């Protein structure tokens, strides 16, 4: 580890980037070469089985945030901070039955936006699109920025070069292979990530057992073990609700629900939650071990790489680099694919060219993927590397969508005007909390306000709905 924190030589890093880039693009081309239809490109022919379905959910949810932010939470807020990040698994568990419901209600559906349009009408749909596209774009930008920053920090590869390569590679294989390529590479990437995390955990436990970590933490940073650490207490359910909001509303998860075979979605999401859960626990423990191992942390999001490099040497550094590259790619490709679907189906097919042919939409989908990636690249070229913090401001927005989604999916009395008002009021109240109380309260406040409005308006002014309208092909 040098003075800047780099743990790998630039030459080795470039070689690893080249090998994995060629691999992902070649696999994308291979898996996508026979795809002709829009269903095939966007939803992998709606034929994804349990193994691939589980792997893609795990890999997508293990973002660079899981390997970088979970340790950061632990180091900043201690045990509760680590558990706060783990609560994101709840999103996968609770989405499992919803995936089955979505697949049943909308067997020919494409996007979460389509659900909002058919279920609540145009106003709620447009507001939902604004929220969802804002969230997806900031997530995409934050991942690309994280990619550039992390590759530079790990190996000295210049930020712009690292960021550009990772965006380019993901764009190419998503373009060639569509969702099939995304899901296929996710399987390989999830295996790499899980093996890497387990290896680092074993190495950490080999040098610092739990008792030792606890004793040294109690001496050096006792507040991190405090069961009543105020900010951490608030962060627990805030983070949980942020995770629920992300999963419940985002087309990343809805598109997978549409893509999985009937009966597969519920089991796949439950299994994914079980497989995902240990990752932030291990990553968080690594962070808590850092003070015990006397490792200085110059950049808070670099805890995991620094500990891994110290414990595992050059081999560990290479492994961390591959894990980081895989976790970034597995999230960026999913975001590119599902956000392109949302824009193609809802903006192009819904607003710009209603009734467009399948062929036109398929061509549009490719251009949208390129345009989205290019827009993200332009934003990432800027000097503002704090854009990752913008993602956290999406917390109250997505939190305000939780109750509209679940109430709208399961009750046929939801009031559409109430849904629109709930998302507006929840977002505004949550953003107020973000700036006045702290980021660890924003999603919670946004969700509470939205919940009260959805429940009260649906009770006081119920609007009956015919579920058959969610499947226009069948209704016709």
């Amino acid at each position: 580890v040098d003075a800047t924190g780099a743990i790998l030589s630039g030459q080795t890093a470039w070689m690893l980037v080249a090998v994995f880039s060629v691999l992902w693009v070649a696999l994308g081309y291979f898996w996508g070469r026979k795809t002709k239809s829009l269903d095939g490109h966007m939803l992998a022919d709606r034929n994804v089985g349990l193994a691939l379905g589980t792997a893609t959910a795990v890999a997508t949810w293990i973002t660079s945030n899981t390997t970088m932010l979970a340790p950061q939470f632990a180091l900043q807020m201690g045990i509760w901070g680590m558990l706060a990040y783990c609560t994101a698994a709840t999103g996968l568990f609770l989405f499992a039955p919803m995936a089955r419901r979505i697949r049943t209600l909308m067997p020919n559906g494409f996007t979460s936006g389509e659900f909002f349009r058919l279920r609540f009408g145009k106003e709620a749909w447009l507001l939902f699109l604004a929220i969802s596209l804002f969230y997806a774009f900031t997530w995409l930008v934050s991942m690309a920025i994280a990619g550039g920053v992390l590759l530079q920090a790990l190996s000295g590869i210049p930020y712009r070069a690292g960021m550009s390569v990772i965006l380019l590679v993901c764009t190419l294989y998503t373009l060639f292979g569509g969702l099939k390529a995304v899901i296929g590479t996710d399987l390989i990437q999830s295996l790499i990530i899980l093996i890497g995390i387990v290896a680092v955990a074993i190495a950490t436990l080999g040098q610092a057992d739990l008792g030792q970590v606890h004793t040294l933490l109690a001496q050096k940073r006792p507040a991190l073990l405090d069961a009543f650490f105020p900010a951490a207490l608030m962060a627990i359910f805030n983070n949980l609700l942020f995770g629920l909001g992300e999963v419940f509303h985002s087309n990343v998860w809805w598109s997978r629900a549409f893509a999985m075979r009937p009966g597969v979605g519920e089991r796949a999401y439950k299994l994914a939650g079980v497989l995902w859960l240990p990752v932030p626990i291990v990553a968080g423990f690594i962070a808590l071990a850092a003070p015990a191992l006397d490792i200085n942390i110059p950049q808070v999001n670099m805890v995991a790489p620094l500990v891994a490099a110290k414990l595992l040497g050059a081999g560990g550094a290479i492994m961390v680099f591959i894990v980081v590259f895989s976790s970034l790619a597995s999230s960026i490709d999913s975001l590119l694919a599902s956000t392109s679907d949302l824009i193609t189906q809802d903006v192009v097919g819904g607003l710009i060219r209603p009734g467009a042919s399948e062929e036109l939409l398929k061509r549009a989908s490719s251009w949208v993927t390129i345009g989205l990636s290019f827009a993200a690249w332009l934003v990432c070229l800027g000097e503002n590397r704090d854009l990752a913090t913008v993602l956290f401001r999406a917390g109250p927005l997505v939190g305000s969508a939780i109750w509209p989604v679940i109430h709208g999916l399961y009750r046929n009395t939801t009031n559409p005007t109430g849904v629109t008002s709930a998302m507006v009021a929840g977002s505004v109240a949550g953003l107020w909390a973000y700036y006045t109380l702290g980021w660890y309260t924003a999603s919670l406040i946004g969700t509470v306000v939205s919940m009260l409005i959805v429940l009260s308006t649906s009770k006081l002014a119920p609007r009956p709905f015919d579920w058959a309208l969610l499947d226009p092909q069948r209704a016709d």
Partner: protein
Amino acid sequence: MASNEMHRATPFVLLAVLFTPPSASARADSSAFGTPSVKGDAKAGYATISWSAPKQATKQAVSFELQHARNASFGDAKLRYRGPHQASMLSGLPDGTHYFRVRSLGKGGQPLASWSKPASFVVAHHSRRFALTLFGMGALVFALIVVFLLSTKSHPASASRGDR
């Protein structure tokens, strides 16, 4: 009609709010030359202390020392870091004012310069009562979501697509 326009305008208002520059939750006094800069969250008790030495000192220095104290005279100072990095993240800081100062060291570990001017950082955690209130509120909302989703299994609206 006015309501419709408000709903249409809302996403753009939200976007404008969301893209405003972030405000640092806490910044201590700092100068460009040698004095540590402290950035963190005063209500959560964590901060990253970073420093830059004069160019001349940076050429000779092989490492830096960071001291942390609870009083301005550094009578109770503790060594928090010694090494080549020019930043260190500290967490779990208790309520009160914290002082930090740095100096550069040569090859033999001898100080190359006197201590920098101290930087201060005031930590004031949220009250436990407030935190527990929000914790309880979060637990209640989560419980309602779970109960709602569990209740749908027996709810007639989820039994089939075509009811009502």
